[in-house]
């Protein structure tokens, strides 16, 4: 029960400390992790948004510039001048010459019936009719027009910029073609990193420039343009590979086209992922270290507690034993006193009877011997009772030990000498294992002798006959250790706890008072020592007496 108690305590300690220390750490880690993610996302979105906006501005500016140039030509030149192919060629050449990279592929003048009147450029498009072309109406209606990319007659992707001119009642159109390759080039500069893409789609999601990856110009981009709001919008999509792709779209050309910047998260920002991994690793390492520390600390703590408990229990049992002895001492004294008086009367009456028996008239009486024997028995038993009560009084008496210079080995020798005859009769050998030159201590020689006598006598009684008693001495820390071992039958564990209790005896009725060991215990305890027992059935019993090293004062 005690064991599970400590186990529970240990588990509780570990659980609580773990929860308190690792909980916040994990919370903090998670918060930081998501904060990182959010920051990262915001940063990427910001980047993409900026890129899309600037790039769309650039494209817008590019187109507006060209439209403005055409409009200026229409304003400043007359229809007649432009309708002359020679003049138109010259103008086209001049424009391309002066403004290099304006990227005009050709220039043409178209009348309101859709007939190409004049043409300057690399292709032979003279005389073509554009009346059926969808942009033609648009130009006449709105004044100027920029087309989507389309293939046209030449089967090359291009963009048409057309501006309407009016001379009197006559409307006409100045039309220029821009190779979509120029747009491609313009947009490509925004294709960052290894996964970044930049392209233009029209409102139906059709590629207006060549995307870097999947898809071709005029192909369907699968971009749902209606998801993009006014200005610049960034949306997230999940790739099949699991990566998150950010798609930023910025409308241009009056919401006809949209510049799209797309980027896979994480790839271009490896440091972000690294930071996350590092954070996770630091927290994980922290958790492991904390776990180890907690387990270690809990174990140490519980072990110390266990030890303290153990010591306290031992102390408690010692205190209980002392209390028991003290209480019994008082009682014993009271009882002894009450019994001593009647005992004295009995003794004296018996003595008186004995005295009377000595008179002649009784000597010849029939039952003289019976009387004498009975009186003898009475006296004998009064004597026995007297010994017991006097023992009890001695036990209760608080005699201060008289301090002599005591040589333990010598005291033991004397004691063994006293008992040697008794031992020899019973075929018991007493073996001595002394440590030479034990320090001389200040103690009460006669009381010690009483204790040793009691212990060795018990050992002899325990063996009965034929055995060995081993008496050894030695030092143990600040104590002199005397151990008395017999190879008798041992003491059952159940009664080991009781053997120091007053009046507890295993001897036959009348052979022991049960006071010997408790008196020994009191004597040794008063000297500041300890007396303990180690016994196993069939292996014999060892009594160990520890006496404090009280050195005699120098005389």
């Amino acid at each position, binding site marked *: 029960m005690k064991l599970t108690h400590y186990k529970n305590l240990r588990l509780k300690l570990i659980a609580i400390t773990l929860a308190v220390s690792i909980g916040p750490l994990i919370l903090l880690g998670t918060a930081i992790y998501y904060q990182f993610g959010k920051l990262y996302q915001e940063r990427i979105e910001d980047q993409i948004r900026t890129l899309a906006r600037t790039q769309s501005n650039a494209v817008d500016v590019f187109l507006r510039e060209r439209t403005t140039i055409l409009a200026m030509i229409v304003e400043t030149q007359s229809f007649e001048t432009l309708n002359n192919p020679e003049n138109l060629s010259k103008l086209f050449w001049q424009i391309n010459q002066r403004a290099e990279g304006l990227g005009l592929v050709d220039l043409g003048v178209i009348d309101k019936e859709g007939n190409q009147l004049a043409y300057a450029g690399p292709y032979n498009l003279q005389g073509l009719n554009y009346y059926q072309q969808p942009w033609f109406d648009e130009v006449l209606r709105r004044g100027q027009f920029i087309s989507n990319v389309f293939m046209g007659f030449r089967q090359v992707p291009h963009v048409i910029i057309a501006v309407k001119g009016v001379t009197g009642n006559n409307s006409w159109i100045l039309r220029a073609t821009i190779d979509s390759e120029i747009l491609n080039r313009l947009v490509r500069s925004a294709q960052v990193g290894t996964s970044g893409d930049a392209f233009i789609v029209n409102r139906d999601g059709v590629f207006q420039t060549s995307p870097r990856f999947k898809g071709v110009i005029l192909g369907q981009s699968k971009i749902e343009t209606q998801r993009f709001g006014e200005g610049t919008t960034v949306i997230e999509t999940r790739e099949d590979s699991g990566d998150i792709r950010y798609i930023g779209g910025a409308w241009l050309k009056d919401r006809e086209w949209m510049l799209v910047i797309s980027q896979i998260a994480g790839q271009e920002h490896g440091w972000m992922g690294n930071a996350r991994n590092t954070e996770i690793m630091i927290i994980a390492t922290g958790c492991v270290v904390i776990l180890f520390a907690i387990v270690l600390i809990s174990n140490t703590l519980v072990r110390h507690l266990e030890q303290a408990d153990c010591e306290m229990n031992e102390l408690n049992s010692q205190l209980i034993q002392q209390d028991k002895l003290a209480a019994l001492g008082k009682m014993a*004294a*009271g009882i*002894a*006193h009450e019994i*001593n*008086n009647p*005992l*004295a*009367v*009995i*003794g*004296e*009456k018996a*003595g*008186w009877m004995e*005295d009377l028996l000595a008179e002649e008239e009784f000597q010849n009486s029939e039952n003289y011997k019976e009387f004498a024997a009975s009186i003898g028995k009475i006296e004998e038993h*009064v*004597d026995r*009772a*007297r010994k017991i009560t*006097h023992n009890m*009084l001695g036990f*209760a*008496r608080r*005699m201060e030990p008289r301090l002599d210079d005591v040589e333990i080995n010598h005291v033991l020798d004397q004691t063994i000498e006293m008992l040697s005859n008794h031992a020899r009769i019973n075929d018991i050998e007493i073996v001595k294992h002394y440590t030479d030159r034990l320090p001389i201590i200040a103690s009460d020689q006669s009381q010690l002798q009483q204790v040793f006598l009691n212990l060795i006598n018990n050992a002899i009684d325990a063996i009965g006959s034929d055995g060995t008693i081993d008496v050894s001495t030695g030092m143990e820390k600040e104590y002199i250790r005397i151990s008395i071992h017999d190879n008798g039958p041992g003491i059952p564990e159940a009664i080991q706890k009781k053997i120091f209790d007053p009046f507890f005896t295993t001897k036959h009725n009348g052979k022991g008072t049960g006071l010997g060991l408790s008196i020994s215990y009191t004597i040794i305890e008063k000297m500041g020592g300890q007396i303990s027992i180690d016994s196993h059935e069939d292996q014999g019993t060892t009594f160990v007496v520890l006496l404090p090293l009280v050195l005699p004062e120098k005389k």
Partner: protein
Amino acid sequence: MNTFRILVVDDETDFLETIVNRLNKRKLDATGVTSGEAAIDVLKEELYDVVLLDIKMPGGMDGIETLREIKRIQPLVEVLLLTGHASVETSIEGMKQGAFDYLLKPMKFEDLLTKMAQAFEKKATHDKKIRDAKIQELIRYPSRVFDQEKK
């Protein structure tokens, strides 16, 4: 053993009677009283050699008080204390007050006789010394015999 006068003081009459009987049987002149007060009264009238005094007597004078009073009346009488009491301190106190020795009840009668004989011997020696001193004094100053007679 020379015969001598013994006063036994004990409130336990059974014990008292028996002891007195046994002592008398051994040709000792023993008398018994059951209280300290009675003992004092007797000692005021008669001379005794040894007093056997029980320390613990309920009611009236206790052993130590009685002892003190005895020593006041008859300083030369030897007192042997008897106790059934646990506390040896009382006995020690008694010894300090001039008791000869103490015995723990129940005692062996032989021990009691031995102790009493010793007490009497001490008393006898003491008496002898005083007698000798008196004789010496008389030899030196014979006229003091008459001074004493005058008293």
